[in-house]
């Protein structure tokens, strides 16, 4: 009851849940910037054309027929703006709906004070679902993520759309296409510059490399023109790299020179994909690796004990051979997680955690007296014998010896 470790520290319990609110907020801002940009652009255009047309009409330079034409241009422009703004408004509504759902979900936790609260389990299960969906999406397992979100009816608590668009661009890169990623760079130019991301430069270099890889007469000229237009402008930021890659002109795909041969490596595509993912996540304030990884590496360590990978079976490590009295089996010893936990450090403890009534059996195995007696009773052994909970060996009860743990 008075288990201090069971208390929920609300201020610090929601570390893994930060992206839950940060992401829709970032997307709200991004969505707004795009709405603002198109509005300003189109408004300036329409206002200017309107002014010019009115002036032209007033001093009879623009005949009414042309005024109608200009008005049609303005109308087309405004209808375009309306379409784009409507999309933005829908996205905004969706994000606010998500925020409402997410704040409500986080608020449920405020009503719980210990992890023993029955409601905490279902809340924590939902958190695991969120972490799994985040993991699935980051790996591009979009169908699985969508299926799980639908099954659990938690679409507003996960970011399927964001990750699906991200994985489209990533898959395009892995398949050798830079167009999608370049378009994304153009959409996020300012922010990428703030992040000092080298993504666009790397993409441009790749296009240049591909032109040289073709090794056709016309292509080299094209490559030179391309480098002038798209690579040289990066000279201020990456002078050494620009100089180096321009030099690639003289080294075809067959080059043995490692410094140049690496440019032609097909591995560059997966590297580009990784650079893109990294920039994407930074831009949206997402952790650089899956939240499930963070939770697991922390949780596996907290649960792990030196015994979990030891040779000796203990009452908590063997579900199949133990008895039903060993009610709960250690998750680290389980088939599911044992291998995964092999290389994480084990938990640190300052105090012993053992039953208060320990007895040692002649085979040197130690158990709580109450548990041994209960087990003996269930096995129908009678009061004068006890049974080892793990090995099943039976001993006379008077061979037990008390163990003192200080």
């Amino acid at each position, binding site marked *: 009851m008075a288990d201090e470790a069971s208390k929920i520290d609300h201020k610090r319990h929601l570390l893994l849940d930060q992206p839950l609110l940060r992401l829709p907020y970032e997307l709200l801002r991004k969505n707004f910037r795009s709405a603002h940009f198109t509005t300003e652009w189109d408004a300036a255009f329409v206002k200017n054309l309107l002014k010019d047309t009115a002036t032209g009409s007033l001093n009879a330079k623009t005949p009414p027929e042309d*005024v109608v034409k200009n008005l049609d241009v303005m109308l087309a422009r405004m209808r375009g703006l309306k379409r784009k703004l409507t999309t933005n408004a829908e996205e905004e509504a969706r994000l606010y709906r998500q925020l409402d759902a997410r704040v409500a979900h986080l608020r449920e936790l405020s009503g719980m004070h210990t992890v023993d609260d029955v409601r905490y389990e279902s809340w924590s299960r939902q958190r*695991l679902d969120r972490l799994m969906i985040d993991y699935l999406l980051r790996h591009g397992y979009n169908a699985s993520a969508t299926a799980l979100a639908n099954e659990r009816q938690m679409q507003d608590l996960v970011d399927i759309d964001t990750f699906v668009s991200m994985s489209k661009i990533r898959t395009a890169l892995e398949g050798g296409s830079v167009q999608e990623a370049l378009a994304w760079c153009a959409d996020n130019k300012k922010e990428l510059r703030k992040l000092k991301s080298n993504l666009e430069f790397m993409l441009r270099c790749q296009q240049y490399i591909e032109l040289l890889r073709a090794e056709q007469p016309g292509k080299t000229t094209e490559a030179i023109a391309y480098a002038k237009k798209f690579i040289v402008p990066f000279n201020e930021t990456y002078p050494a790299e620009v100089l180096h890659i321009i030099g690639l002109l003289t080294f075809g795909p067959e080059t043995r020179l490692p410094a140049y041969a690496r440019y032609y490596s097909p591995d560059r595509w997966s590297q580009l994909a990784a650079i893109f993912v990294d920039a994407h996540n930074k831009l949206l304030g997402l952790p650089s690796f899956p939240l499930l990884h963070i939770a697991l590496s922390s949780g*596996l360590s907290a649960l792990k004990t030196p015994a979990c990978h030891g040779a000796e079976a203990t009452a908590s490590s063997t579900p199949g051979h133990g008895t039903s009295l060993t009610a709960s089996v250690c998750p680290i010893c389980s088939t599911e997680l044992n291998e995964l936990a092999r290389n994480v450090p084990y938990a640190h403890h300052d*105090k012993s955690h053992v039953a208060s009534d320990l007895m040692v059996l002649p085979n040197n195995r130690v158990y709580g007296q109450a548990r041994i007696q209960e087990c003996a009773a*269930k096995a129908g052994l009678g009061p004068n014998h006890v049974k080892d909970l793990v090995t099943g060996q039976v001993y006379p009860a008077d061979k037990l010896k008390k163990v003192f743990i200080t």
Partner: protein
Amino acid sequence: MDSLQHALAEVNKMRRLSTAVDHVDKIIEMLSTAREQVATTLDPHTTSLTMTKLQNPIKVAFERVNEDLKEVSGAHKKLGRALDKHFPLKPLPSDHDAMAEYPDLINRAIAMHLLREGQFSVASTFIDEAQDASTHHAPYQRLDADTPDDDLDEPMDEDDPDMNASPFTTASTNQDLSSLQSQELQTKFAEMYSILQELKARNLGPAIDWARSNSDELEARGSNLEFELIKLQFVWLFKGPLVNGLPDNERNGRSGALDYARRNFSRFQGRHFAEINRLVGAMAFASNIPDSPYKQDFAIDGAFMDVASSFTREFCSLLGLSAESPLYIAATAGALALPYQMKFVEMSKAKGTEWTTANELAFETPLPERMLYHSIFVCPVAKEQTTEANPPMMIPCGHVLAKETLQRLCKGSRLKCPYCPSEGQIKDARQIIL
């Protein structure tokens, strides 16, 4: 979170982009009207009049749109401030992803979790998708600036002896994943789920059948599940048709229960004689169970929940699995331990010391009692946990010390216990298994 919800409610009252859309619509209306006017007359004079008159309203309308956008942005900023205030950003681990090397092991854990949660169709979708991805390309790659180019494509270090020694190398784990798809595990969990569904609907039949057909294994584990189920069936029948909703015939009610007891309790007479007598004796109190000493035995709700959880436990145990999802426990423990980890990381950063990963965490991560699965022995002298290399030793007086401590404490072959006046021989110390 309450204050954040209030802030969000406030923000929700503010203007949205949809207002700007309405005002853009107004501009379109004005432009259309003007266009119609000009197009119908095509008269230079009225045209220039129309166009001059159009200027100001359009200008005002655009200003309106601008104001809309300002307020929308204001709402976002208000929300941003509320987030910063009530849900301030705290750092998460970002330098090293210890899990990145094991996507196959994590995939397997997720697939198992989905299966034990009864999410069979999601599990199947996932297994297909994960296998598909692993045959095409390494699905997830971490960007690591320090890694040389040519290493980037290796999802796992094949020279790592640990990984080769384990049965979980990339190839075999993929097989593993497909074995989850095709083999019995899925069928088994499906069986478990249908039995649990029936239990929820208060139908003990399938659970009893299962327990009976596995009675040897259950008995070997010292499990009383079969008896507990039969006992509950007896009580359930005893309650009669008004409570259990079963047909009102000779197989229900008190006589039905008695008949059931005769047919089923006999096998358990040996081991549960006293309890059976007790239960059958309850017949005498039949009219007034709630006030009788049998109140506990006849409380139904808890009993159904208890058999359901011991059924799950036994079912999973016979499959060699734990009853609770390890992934769930680990993720929950992670959420509880993470704040301690981050606090430690911050402190180390402030002190300029590096957080190196050793065998043992350098900080405590307190977990609730029920998440401590093993006995943990910390040597009271060395203040260190015992390990296989440095196991717990019990000296003749019954006190326990770590082996290394013992070696340090002993003088020659004699040993003085630091916790009681007793003295003994080092050869009499015995290594114990906690």
